[in-house]
């Protein structure tokens, strides 16, 4: 019987194929809870979950909060950007203070890649990564996988195009790790300024010269968010030119397989990464991604609460 042996979920890179499949299967089986009149099970009754979000996030934080509540855990949200962090308290000190409140799980988003490992070494509670710098965003990766499984019934042999700023994308990294482990292939496209060196060695990854090349016969087209504040002034001229070469539209989507699924981690810049007709069209799975987010996060909370087996 499959068992989840990890105390923390920090990166899909740290998980095996079996771990990922178990999390997805748990999420599939938990999903119905979210459709019932009573959207709650008593599983994590008495557990305390702290959502520690150093970066602003509505979607992910809300999703984790709902996931915790539906499992009957007590969830507390802390946004240190408007509390002690601005008074010079270090991450380690903040975490130690939170630990005095005896949380079972800390769900953290932090701008610094790897800060969850730092925290995991200091604290004895479980750590779940809700996004760290440009490193990983495992819950997003898992919900993307679940959504692809909803459409195709499998996660092997898929051709997944990921288009945009790969360098700064933790979503891309988690998807590359997950898809590769499950036997699918990733095709990346983006301005060369946004494709990091050696990315093809991260897994079953092909770096494409053009967006059209990546889209060719794709089963899944995943568009990444462009953030002017991240790309600065040196990575691209402006959003207008970006969307001309790396935006998804009714013409280039035809290169992908008929009825290929379109995904986006959100929030979407309509007219930049893709046109509104793509966002709202039949091929869009964007809302399903959000819906699956709660179930995936419930599965993550459930399994890290199970303790270690060593």
């Amino acid at each position, binding site marked *: *019987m*499959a*068992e*989840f*042996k990890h105390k923390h979920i920090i990166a899909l890179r740290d998980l095996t194929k079996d771990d990922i499949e*178990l999390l997805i*299967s*748990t999420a*599939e*089986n*938990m999903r*119905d*809870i979210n459709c*019932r*009149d*009573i959207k*709650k*099970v*008593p*599983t*994590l009754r*008495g*557990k305390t979950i702290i959502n520690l979000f150093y970066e602003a996030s509505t979607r992910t934080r809300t999703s984790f909060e709902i996931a915790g509540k539906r*499992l009957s855990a007590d969830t507390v949200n802390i946004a240190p950007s408007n509390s002690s962090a601005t008074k010079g308290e270090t991450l380690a000190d903040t975490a130690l203070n939170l630990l005095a409140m005896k949380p079972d799980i800390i769900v953290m988003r932090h701008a610094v890649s790897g800060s969850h490992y730092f925290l995991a070494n200091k604290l004895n509670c479980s750590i779940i990564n809700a996004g760290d710098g440009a490193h990983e965003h495992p819950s997003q990766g898992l919900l993307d996988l679940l959504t692809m499984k909803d459409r195709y019934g499998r996660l092997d042999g898929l051709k997944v195009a990921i288009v945009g700023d790969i360098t700064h994308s933790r979503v891309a990294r988690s998807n590359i790790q997950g898809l590769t482990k499950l036997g699918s292939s990733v095709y990346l496209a983006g301005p060369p300024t946004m494709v990091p060196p050696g990315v093809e060695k991260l897994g079953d990854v092909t770096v494409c010269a053009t967006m059209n090349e990546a889209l060719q016969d794709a089963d899944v087209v995943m568009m990444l968010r462009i953030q002017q504040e991240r790309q600065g002034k040196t990575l691209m001229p402006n959003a207008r030119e970006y969307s001309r070469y790396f935006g998804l539209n009714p013409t280039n989507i035809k290169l992908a397989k008929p009825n290929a699924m379109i995904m986006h981690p959100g929030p979407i810049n309509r007219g930049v990464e893709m046109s509104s007709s793509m966002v709202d069209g039949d091929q869009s799975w964007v809302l399903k991604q959000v819906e699956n987010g709660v179930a995936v996060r419930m*599965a993550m909370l*459930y*399994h890290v*609460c*199970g*303790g*270690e*087996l060593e």
Partner: protein
Amino acid sequence: MTAEQTVLMDGAGIKRALTRIAHEILERNKGVADIVLVGIRSGGAFLADGIAQQISVIEGGAVPVGAVDITLYRDDCSGHLPHHPVGKTDIPFSLEGKKVILVDDVLYTGRTIRAAMDALMDFGRPQSIQLAVLIDRGHRELPIRADFVGRNVPTSQKENVQVAFDGSNQPIEVVLEK
């Protein structure tokens, strides 16, 4: 270490027991009106299918059958062992005002039944819940008893009772392991 095994019931015996339980359910409830069957995953769910089949043979009409996975309602979730994989709860009908026949393979401490009843309550408010089990092996830790029992088997707590199923989820035998 090989456990000593005794076969308590064979396939035919199990089938006879399920047929009898089906008759008792119909008798007690005066027919199939408002009856729904919910089996507890995994063994109970297979047996619920078997009982439903017998009921339809006897009465000629189908009764709704669902399955409940009680993993999320277990009372041992705060232990330090890995959590059990979560199975699918599949109750594609309303329980509101229904007479629910909860089906399990082996009744032991009663904790599984407690969890299953909590799960059912989260799906609505049934008129009643009745419990049907293939084997009652005693040693209850909660005030729970079965309404329909295939066979009472006195056991010691060191022993283990297993219902084995074949590839198409048909019961093959009941085994006592010492």
